[in-house]
């Protein structure tokens, strides 16, 4: 079990998160996929920290966990707001960025 295993695992997790963001319409799953990608990065950070024997990476990873928590708070608040607005958590229902739907 070499460091490479951890790194490959982290990369794979990141890829899975990517697929989730692209393929899913359920806002909750999209949100969790984003969290998953962040966590994959976290795993990589922890691994690098362990490889170098440097705790800076672990600290960074710790800070990243805090960022994940902040992201969760905002994303969930947004989901609540969006759900209240349209009674839906389908990403396809939220297309306010395009002009024709604004009218």
């Amino acid at each position, binding site marked *: 079990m070499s460091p490479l295993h951890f790194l490959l695992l982290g990369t794979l997790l990141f890829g899975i998160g990517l697929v989730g963001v692209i*393929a*899913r319409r359920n806002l909750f799953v999209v949100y969790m996929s984003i969290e998953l990608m962040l966590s994959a990065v976290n795993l990589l950070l922890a691994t690098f920290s362990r490889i170098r024997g440097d705790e800076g990476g672990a600290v960074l990873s710790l*800070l990243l*966990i805090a960022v*994940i928590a902040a992201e*969760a708070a905002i994303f969930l608040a947004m989901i609540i*707001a969006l759900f209240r607005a349209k009674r839906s958590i389908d990403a396809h229902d939220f297309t306010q960025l395009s002009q024709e739907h604004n009218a």
Partner: protein
Amino acid sequence: MSESIIFYVLALFLIGGASGMITARRTIFSAASFMLAMIALAGMFALLNQSFLFLAQLLVAVGAIITLSMLVIVSVNISERYIPKEPHLGRDLLLGVVIAAPIVALIITALRTHFAASFAPIPDTFGTLASIGATLFASWVLPFELISLLLLAALIGAVVISRKGERS
């Protein structure tokens, strides 16, 4: 040897949980799978001698975030009929895999061909709360403070965004 076995078991849970999360049609199963993955990830941290990260992962990622997500599902009462149907889920997932594969492949190739490292010898205290704390407050004070600011902003933002009424 035993570590290898633990690694592979955890990796199985991790990949399985992650895949289950993006394939499950019901949000609740996604959340359950995600929880599984997060717990397995905590295990990975433990395996990397990052005992504090292990606890932080359990405490924050599992304890707080999953609970919060579930609470949102429950308290906003996003029941079955509000969940998108996603009739072409299989096709979409395939498309996603096709798009993500080259990216992952590139990183993996890069890692395999240009990265050769082994674990450095580490002291016993590596990754413990005291050690991480010392590092954190010795050379990472500014990021730490900034993160606290970020959390405060997120806190206020979450309150403002999810507040009822007043906004038209």
